[in-house]
């Protein structure tokens, strides 16, 4: 039982403390920033911006306008792929049909991976840029992404997704926790990029060389991890670019965030089956980072349970184990308080959302 206690404690401590410290030291002692630079006029690579969407007709006009008006000195095309949409997505794109840069591809409903495959199949740009309908890119996003491809070792670039909750301006009832987590996660990605490669990308904003693209299996849950990791496994770098920004909002509540995380973590399990090479240090150039960051996150929940069980079993043996048990119980009690706060916030928001139209209606009378 003591072995279980110490193994679990060491694993949790390594994933959340040891690895970040190791990474910080590594990035400080041996940084390898990408050799990015601005291309000369007329030599910026051509971009194919791929926007896969299902029933996003309300958002698409604004989103397409955003992608068309971003400053970029090279050629670009925007490929909108509708994955079996039934809400008039084709009609929403129609006003842009006269523009040569816009292409519309309609495919039967088959999921996002197949929609992305369809978009890439018709792309002509040297660089593929992946985007979602909901977010907005900031002005420098395209040129910041592209400038990294001046480095011949760079096969992919992920931009930075900024959530409203990071600045405390979110209406999300779980904004504090998600904001803290996302800030920490991006710090890891930034440093992983600095030592070699990030372990995936942000689906809302990332770019790959078209020559490195391999069609995604239909059942893929995390296209934005599988596609970049294949590029890394082929010996290229995927780097983090914090000047390429997509803005988004956090999930509205804990239930929505839990669904999103469940899907993400399921995808992290799935990817190990899709690319078992990730588990072997000889073929995975970022094996240590992958095991520490991605696989570690899959093991930690089991280690937390094991640690609690071992602490309960050992609590009477030594004061250290009693202290560990008290600390864990305290932490979980804090989490229960957090759950109650989240539920209270959610109810307040629902009440406000219900009453507001009535109040506005009365004002108008």
């Amino acid at each position, binding site marked *: 039982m003591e072995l279980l206690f110490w193994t679990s404690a060491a694993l949790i401590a390594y994933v959340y403390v040891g690895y970040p410290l190791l990474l910080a030291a590594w990035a400080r002692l041996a940084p390898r920033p990408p050799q990015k630079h601005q291309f000369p006029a007329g030599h910026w690579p051509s971009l194919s911006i791929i926007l896969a969407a299902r029933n996003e007709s309300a958002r698409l006009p604004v989103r397409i306008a955003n992608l068309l008006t971003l400053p970029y000195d090279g050629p670009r095309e925007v490929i909108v792929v509708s994955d079996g949409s039934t809400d008039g997505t084709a009609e929403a794109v129609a006003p842009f049909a006269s523009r040569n840069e816009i292409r519309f591809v309609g495919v039967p409903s088959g999921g996002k991976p197949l929609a992305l495959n369809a978009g890439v199949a018709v792309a002509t740009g040297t660089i593929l840029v992946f985007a979602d309908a909901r977010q907005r890119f900031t002005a420098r996003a395209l040129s910041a992404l592209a400038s990294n491809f001046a480095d011949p070792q760079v096969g992919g670039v992920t931009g930075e997704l900024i959530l409203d909750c990071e600045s405390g301006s979110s209406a999300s009832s*779980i904004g504090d926790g998600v904001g*803290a987590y996302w800030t920490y996660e991006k710090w890891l990605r930034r440093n992983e990029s600095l030592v070699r490669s990030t372990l995936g990308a942000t689906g809302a904003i990332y770019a790959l060389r078209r020559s490195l693209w391999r069609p995604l299996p239909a059942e893929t849950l995390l296209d934005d991890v599988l596609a970049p990791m294949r590029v890394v496994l082929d010996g290229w770098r995927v780097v983090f670019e914090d000047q390429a920004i997509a803005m988004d909002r956090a999930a509205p509540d804990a239930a929505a965030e839990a669904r999103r995380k469940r*899907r993400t973590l399921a995808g992290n399990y799935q990817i190990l089956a899709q690319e078992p090479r990730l588990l072997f240090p000889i073929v995975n150039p970022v094996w240590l980072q992958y095991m520490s960051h991605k696989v570690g996150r899959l093991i930690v*929940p089991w280690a937390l349970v094991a640690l609690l069980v071992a602490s309960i079993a050992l609590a009477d043996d030594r004061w250290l184990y009693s202290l560990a048990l008290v600390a864990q119980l305290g932490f979980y009690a*804090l989490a229960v308080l*957090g759950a109650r706060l*989240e539920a209270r916030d959610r109810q307040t928001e629902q009440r406000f959302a219900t009453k507001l139209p009535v109040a506005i209606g009365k004002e108008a009378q």
Partner: protein
Amino acid sequence: MMYRAARVAFTFVMMNIAAVAGLFWLGRGRGVWK
């Protein structure tokens, strides 16, 4: 301060539960959009 710590603790626990749930959910996610 304590409320913020409580919210972060809740998010941490929720994410770890989601990781376990993700394992059991795997295989039923086809066609799900983010």
